[in-house]
């Protein structure tokens, strides 16, 4: 049995060598036709040639596939980034089977056919490996994006001297609240602000977890000597909060960010006066 397999294997290696040009050309055709994406034909041809060489080398060196796996991982990463589907990525590898089969059929010897079964199993393994690397690459991209989003989605803006605001948008989970809280407290220190507005207009639902996170943030800011106002409480959110039974205690809440700004300006002693020429003049009330 093993004598047969070895003979088959040798025959495949010979065929791969003798018909390199033809198999490669056919492989490239299959790989190009399997995708609807625009592909760089020259680049793909180079990649396939490299894979082909590496495959032949690994057959020569008693089946060490680590180099080849490295190349395949690279291919999967590239394709994942360029937005190819997992199928389109794996078909590139599986395409080699079809490309070689035509040559094997022509050869027709029992050794070649037996060898093809073995070859087919090797390619299947490599194909699965490609899909796995593709999935890993995708996951990495998603994790990176989530981290970037976390950074992006929590700006602390200055509204006035001594007044900062955090416009919250989207889902407020523990990880994000942590980031928001840290950023807000740091900004309070850096700018010497005494007032902060947390705007939740962009938060779709306030459940007990979100409320608890908000309350903690407010208490933390208070410990640092800053007063917090929560704004952007829409009617349906107010309704839900009351029904849930959440108490905001003595925390000031406002319907809109404008109301909150007016409140904090008043609290910090700034009076907004409408000027004669509908110009807005601001003066500070003397203590």
């Amino acid at each position, binding site marked *: 049995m093993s004598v047969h397999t070895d003979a088959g294997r040798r025959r495949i290696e010979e065929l791969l060598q003798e018909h390199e040009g033809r198999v490669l050309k056919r492989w490239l055709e299959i790989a190009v036709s399997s995708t609807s994406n625009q592909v760089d034909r020259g680049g793909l041809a180079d990649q396939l040639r490299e894979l082909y060489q590496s495959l032949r080398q690994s057959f020569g060196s008693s089946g060490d596939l680590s180099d080849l796996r490295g190349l395949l991982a690279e291919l999967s990463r590239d394709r994942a980034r360029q937005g190819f589907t997992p199928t389109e990525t794996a078909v590139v590898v599986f395409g080699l089977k079809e490309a070689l089969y035509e040559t094997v059929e022509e050869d027709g010897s029992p050794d070649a056919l037996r060898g093809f079964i073995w070859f087919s199993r090797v390619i299947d393994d490599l194909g699965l490996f490609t899909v796995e690397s593709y999935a890993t690459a995708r996951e990495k991209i998603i994790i990176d994006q989530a981290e970037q989003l976390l950074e992006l989605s929590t700006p602390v803006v200055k509204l006035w001297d001594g007044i900062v605001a955090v416009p919250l948008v989207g889902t407020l989970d523990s990880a994000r609240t942590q980031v928001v809280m840290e950023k807000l407290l740091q900004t309070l220190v850096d700018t010497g602000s005494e007032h902060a507005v947390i705007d939740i207009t962009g938060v779709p639902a306030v459940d007990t977890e979100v409320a608890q996170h908000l309350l903690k943030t407010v208490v933390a800011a208070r410990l640092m000597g800053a007063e917090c106002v929560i704004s952007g409480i829409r009617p349906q959110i107010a*309704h839900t909060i009351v029904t849930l039974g959440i108490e905001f205690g003595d925390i000031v809440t406002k319907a809109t960010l404008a109301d909150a700004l007016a409140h904090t300006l008043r609290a910090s002693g700034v009076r907004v006066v409408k000027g004669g020429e509908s110009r807005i003049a601001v003066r500070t009330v003397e203590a």
Partner: protein
Amino acid sequence: MTTAEELPINVNGDVVLVRQRVRTVAVNVGLSLVDQTKVVTAASELARNALVYAGGGQVRVEVVHNGVRQGLRMTFSDNGPGIPDIEQALTDGWTTGNGLGLGLSGSRRLVDEFALESTPGEGTLITVTKWAR
């Protein structure tokens, strides 16, 4: 025509998915904006309970009919430790974790129908329904 779907609750992100799905169904059923927000919040509470206290579970979201009225029904099930004292669990401010203790009792107020079955050691089944007005 009854549409139903099962959603898993195994990680934090699943709670967000459940919320989004429930919101879509709530809009289709014709719930008012206030009722949409209420039912979404209840979904969020109950899904998180399943995740935090039972280590995961699943929810079945379906559209139900009562004559011409349409409603949204959610069935949360888990195989967690169960609730030994249901009356206590439904008391405002009671919690075995570190939350506010309003999730379960608040959810009951957010929906029209609320049923809780629990067997200690086997799991919990919570069925809630919100009817369109």
